[in-house]
């Protein structure tokens, strides 16, 4: 009977097409990371893949690479400052606009989120124009300010998503039982949004640590950040040390990701 045949043929071809495309997507997502990791253990002077032989020489060479180390230190310091300020400003703003359906709250929400879709390079240029017009010299502070603008949206987004799950009845019953505002915040609101803040802080840190468009315009010579240093290496000399730095960054990212998944359920917060 042809009617019995059709669904099985259909499901076979459907599964095959979807499975193949999904498999290709997975390969595409995972392969570049693996390629960088393998290349970083090369013994040679070029980025040949697969490497002719393996060694740890490029990792060892990082020990004397003081320029890269300085840049990494600036990036870490910057990420810490940016994350701390973003969490305070972002969480406070989320509490304010989270449970309001008024026009001003939605307007502010759109404003605070807009750095995510606006070309970051244009904002970097705007900041450069702003600080030079104001007569402020570029420094660690101006760099941090620029980074905060593009990092706050991540904290806001995850915190808002968690606030949406908070049952207002819980707040009212806490209030009616005589709990103060601060007590209610600590015992009811905070436990609900804690994971959202944590995940948002993590992503804000990563986005600052990885930011180039804003740093290009805001960083002065004394505050060179790691991604820009790496970008210059890749543009000029294709130094194999870049592969070793990449290897370190991938290892640290994977480790941080697994920890954040355990602590704050990172993957649930990202959706």
């Amino acid at each position, binding site marked *: 009977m042809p009617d019995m045949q059709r669904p099985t043929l259909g499901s076979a071809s459907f599964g095959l097409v*979807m499975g193949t495309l999904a498999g290709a997507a*997975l390969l595409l997502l995972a392969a570049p990371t693996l390629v960088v990791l393998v290349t970083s253990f090369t013994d040679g002077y070029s980025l040949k893949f697969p490497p002719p032989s393996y060694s740890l020489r490029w990792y060892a060479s990082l020990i004397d690479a003081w320029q890269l180390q300085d840049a990494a230190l600036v990036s870490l310091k910057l990420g810490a400052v940016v994350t701390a300020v973003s969490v305070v*400003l972002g969480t406070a703003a989320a509490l*304010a606009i989270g449970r309001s359906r008024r026009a001003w709250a939605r307007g502010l929400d759109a*404003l*605070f989120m807009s750095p995510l879709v606006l070309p970051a*390079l244009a904002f970097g240029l705007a900041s450069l124009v*702003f600080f030079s017009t104001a007569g402020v010299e570029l420094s660690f502070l101006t760099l941090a300010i620029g980074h905060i603008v593009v990092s706050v949206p991540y904290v806001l987004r995850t915190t808002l998503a968690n606030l949406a799950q908070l049952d207002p009845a819980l707040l009212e019953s806490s209030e009616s039982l005589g709990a103060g505002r601060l007590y209610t915040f600590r015992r009811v609101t905070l436990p609900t949004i804690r994971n959202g803040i944590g995940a948002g802080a993590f992503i804000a840190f990563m986005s600052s640590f990885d930011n180039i468009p804003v740093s290009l315009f805001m960083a002065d010579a004394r505050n060179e950040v790691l991604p820009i240093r790496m970008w210059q290496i890749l543009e000029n000399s294709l130094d194999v040390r870049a592969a070793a730095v990449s290897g370190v960054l991938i290892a640290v990212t*994977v480790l941080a990701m697994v920890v954040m998944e355990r602590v704050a359920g990172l993957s649930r917060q990202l*959706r």
Partner: protein
Amino acid sequence: MTAITAPGLAGPATAAWPRIGREWTLALPLAAFFAVFFVTPLLLLVAVSLYADAEMTRFGLDQYIRFFGDTFNLAVLGSTLLLGVKVTALTLLFGYPLAWLYTRSGPRMQSALILVIILPLLTSVVVRTFAWIVILGRDGIVNNLLLSLGLAETPLRLLYTEGGLVAALVQVQMPLMVLPLITTLSRLDPNLLDASAALGAGPWRGFLKVTLPLSLPGIVAGCLLTYAAAVTAFITQSLVGGGQMLFMPQYIYQQTITLHNWPFAAAISIVFMMSVLGVVMLFNLLGRASKGYVHA
């Protein structure tokens, strides 16, 4: 509820933590921060773009006239916007089945998949782009494979081509597409698909008539994020695209840092932002329409 605290009675604790009805004050610090360090710079950028000359002495629309009067500039803008379309379409083609696979997998498989999906999102863009230099380079995997299979006699130039750039951008932006799709697909009622199957619809028909239309909001959200990220991906564009192709972000950078022509750089930034904003608003309209479709 309204604030009923009399001014005289407000102690230090209530002052530090506003009562219900005054929660909006908590948004003030960030609002002030954005007003000074986000809105003001952007307004200044508009002002600078209205200078007629690079020395910034006279006002005029000269920069915009210069931009739109030259087909070279329009070609750069056009190819940038088109690059975003290509990357977004390919990302959707590969990302959708991956999100679909995720929702059909067991919990263990799901946690493995989500890590593979998120890892590129959190890995440095420079590192991800660097991987593509290794893959597409003269000594890279693709060339070695082609040579050993006898499909090419000499290494092909893959780096600094648009095909290579699109491939790299699809990989770099894939998580931005897959994550919203997973959210939408996980919320779909499985009964709908069962009902469609019980009524005799095959998997293709069920997919095209039930799953795909109902996941439109996720598709729109994913496309929006992917598009915005792809057109502004300065690093990937400059490293994988090389000097052969010029896109708007590099054009802005070049005019600012190399040529010090701030007014023209500001003008092309404004044109670029407005174009991206236009596309974003178009996506948002589509998103709203698709939500209405779903609820109807």
